């Protein structure tokens, strides 16, 4: 347990009835909890439970729609991350915000460098101050080292030193150990205990159950934007926490395609791409949806990218319809009838500045609708119009710019792009993320229809209802490894979460 807590720990931060909605989703719904000074308060929950949103509100990145924050009993209005920093609240992001080419000391004191009368930075004092900070945290680092040369763990320590240099009283850590070795994690815990002993309060987001019992004084579980419970870890069992994380009523939103598995369409044999995933093997049948469950960072998207040839696996075999194939670029995968709808619509899916038509036609152009280099415009446009119609894409016409479509309609266009190719194997990475309920149901129905017609679907999803409602079998991944493959009949939320969170 963290440090000798005072008899009645002072309440550092209080979250009162905070709600926050984003277009299409309620991220937080009337959440109240409090952090006591000198303690570690862990937050648990599935992907999308609202942990990160809550932390971003506390760090001043988002503003709550309703409710308030109280810091040491006083109401707190944060308009920017800067204001949060001035109030002693620092967040250490998953993707660290350091400047690689600058030294540790320069990073810690950026914007607050000690200057002499002429405005020149006093480097000696800069380094000495940093040294003092690092010693206080018992971190063995030279302040003059460029951050580029540091490990992820050491960079995290720099972030912590930076927070400390601002006299931060409240530290938010978002899965700090996800990229650390056990030894590095132990050192991080030592530093955290050091900080709590000095009275700092820590919000700690984690997916690792073991850490909870090791470092947390209190744990709160969020689910679907709601606060479920707060308790001391000693009073809770692993199973109890998992039940709280997943214990929702499953609405029957999903059309269940009857299980009618055909021959094996796609097999993976001992696929490896360290450190992203290890030793992944599975069979995907025609006429089947194989759901892939897991927490963020489990290596699911990287597996999809490897199967599609975007970042080929470093070892292992891919078999399509029983024949071993080399998939070293997307073109090779497409030639075998494999299609991938990526997770990040904006980043790697849409051509936002181009028209709906241009977004639809692009993949099929690599192999069809072209004669002597010239696009067969009439035939192609008719095919695009037909697919757009059958997917019920809501757009004034096919020349509308993609960026003017809603997320759900953009996603339908991306699906249409691949359906034009008539793929045998469809890999879907979060097919309904950021999609409104109506479009979601339509996309699910479409997937079911494809499967009924004999397509094989590998569906990555972080939404438990989607995974449980759609899949015939469920493959669970944890930290790059397959931890289990469950048949639909035996799968439930607790079993999946047990395999996903370990």
């Amino acid at each position: 347990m963290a440090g000798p807590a005072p008899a009645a720990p002072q309440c550092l931060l209080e979250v009162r009835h905070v709600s926050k909605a984003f277009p299409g989703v309620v991220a937080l719904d009337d959440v109240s909890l409090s952090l006591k000074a000198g303690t570690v308060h862990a937050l648990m929950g599935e992907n999308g439970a609202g942990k990160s949103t809550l932390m971003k509100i506390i760090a001043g990145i988002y503003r709550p729609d309703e409710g308030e924050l109280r810091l040491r009993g006083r109401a707190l209005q944060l308009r920017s991350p800067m204001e949060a920093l001035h109030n002693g609240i620092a967040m250490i992001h998953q993707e660290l915000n350091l400047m690689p080419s600058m030294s540790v000391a320069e990073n810690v004191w950026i914007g607050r460098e000690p200057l002499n009368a002429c405005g020149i930075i006093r480097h000696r004092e800069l380094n000495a101050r940093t040294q003092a900070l690092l010693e206080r945290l018992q971190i063995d680092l030279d302040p003059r080292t460029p951050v580029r040369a540091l490990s992820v763990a050491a960079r995290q320590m720099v972030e912590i030193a930076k927070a400390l240099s601002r006299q931060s009283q409240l530290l938010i850590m978002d899965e700090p150990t996800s990229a650390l070795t056990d030894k590095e994690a132990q050192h991080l815990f030592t530093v955290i205990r050091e900080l709590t002993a000095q009275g700092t309060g820590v919000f700690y987001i984690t997916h690792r159950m073991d850490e909870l019992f090791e470092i947390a004084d209190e744990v709160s579980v969020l689910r679907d934007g709601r606060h479920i419970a707060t308790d001391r870890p000693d009073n809770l069992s692993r199973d109890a926490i998992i039940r709280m994380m997943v214990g929702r009523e499953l609405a029957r939103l999903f059309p269940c395609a009857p299980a009618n598995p055909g021959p094996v369409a796609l097999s993976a044999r001992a696929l490896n791409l360290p450190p992203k995933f290890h030793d992944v093997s599975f069979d995907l049948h025609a006429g089947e949806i194989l759901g892939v469950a897991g927490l963020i960072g489990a290596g699911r998207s990287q597996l999809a990218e490897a199967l599609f040839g975007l970042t080929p696996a470093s070892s292992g075999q891919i078999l399509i319809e029983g024949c071993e194939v080399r998939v070293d670029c997307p073109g090779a995968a497409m030639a075998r009838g494999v299609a991938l709808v990526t997770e990040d619509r904006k980043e790697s899916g849409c051509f936002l500045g181009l028209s709906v038509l241009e977004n639809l036609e692009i993949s099929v152009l690599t192999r069809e609708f072209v004669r002597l280099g010239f696009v067969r415009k009439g035939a192609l446009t008719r095919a695009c119009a037909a697919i757009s119609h059958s997917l019920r894409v809501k757009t004034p016409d096919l020349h509308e710019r993609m960026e003017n479509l809603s997320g759900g309609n953009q996603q339908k266009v991306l699906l249409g792009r691949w359906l034009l190719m008539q793929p045998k194997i469809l890999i879907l990475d979060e097919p309904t993320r950021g999609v409104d309920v109506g479009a979601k149901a339509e996309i699910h129905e479409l997937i079911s229809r494809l499967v009924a017609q004999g397509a094989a679907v590998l569906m990555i999803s972080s939404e438990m209802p989607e995974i449980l409602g759609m899949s015939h079998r469920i493959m669970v991944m944890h930290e790059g490894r397959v931890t289990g493959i469950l048949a639909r009949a035996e799968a439930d939320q607790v079993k999946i979460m047990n395999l996903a969170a370990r």
Partner: protein
Amino acid sequence: MSTGQREPMSEAPAPPSVGSAASARARGLPSEASILMVLVGLALTFELLGWIFVGQSFLFNAQRLVVMILQVSVIGIIAVGVTQVIISGGIDLSSGSVVALTAMVAASLAQSSDAVRAVYPALIDLPLIVPLAAGLAVGALAGLLNGTLIAWTSIPPFIATLGVMVSARGIAKWYTRGQPVSMLTDSYADIGGGVVPVVIFLATALVFHVALRYTRYGKFTYAIGANAQAARVSGINVPRHLIVVYTIAGGLSGLAGIVTSARAVSGQSGMGMMYELDAIAAAVIGGASLSGGVGRITGTVIGTLILGVVTSGFTFLRIDAYYQEIVKGAIIVVAVIADQYRQRARSRRA
């Protein structure tokens, strides 16, 4: 996949039309319209000023119009290639130097027997095809180098083509140790004679207008410029395509080098100085976006003509060349600002 067999639902949208007249009106005029109006406006301004200050018409003078287009034909040929590079999300700074290099190489293979000290005394009075092929090949090779550097080492196009720009100019000088190459054959000089450069410019523009709008090559170029990562995921071999785009741009610079040396009936290593910037300006004035995915050859042609009108208008009004450059710079900046406003307005209209 099936398209039918669904009960029609009440909120099912009508099948999207593929560009009815109504929707075309809703989207407004093509983006070239505004830039065409700038061209017409500038021409009319010069016409008006002509009557006031010079006492004659600016536009109703066939010879002046021919000279005007002739002056910018070389820039136009380069700009057609540069437009494709810009659409693909890149930039090509090497064009002007490639013009010089190809002018030198092509001219050295086009010398007539009158040449006193030919570069290759054994290679005089060659058939026209030899210098033409050599010029195009040298240009294409330079472009291939650009493309390969960008595609394989993933250094920014700005840096890769900057390097080639400096080196190509160096090679052009080294080729004859700085000496100009003169005494070219009549058949070679004919390429630069009369309205031939204008014809070459317009033919080039037409070919690549068609290529960009109606071929797979064009579709892929726009897609890569709009979102290279999405293009890769869509199965496009992005590095290979970029190499093709830069090679075409290099080949067109080579063509421009041939025309330049034919017009001057000599090859000089100082030729084509800053042409790359004029070509980029023409493309940008014509609506090409340096962030990629946007641009059209028709716009670039109009952009080129705007540069021509400004140059010949100022000469016509006998205004100092200094002012000409100052105004040209302002036009480029204003064109880009106007374009940004237009784009913002378009994405707001959601």
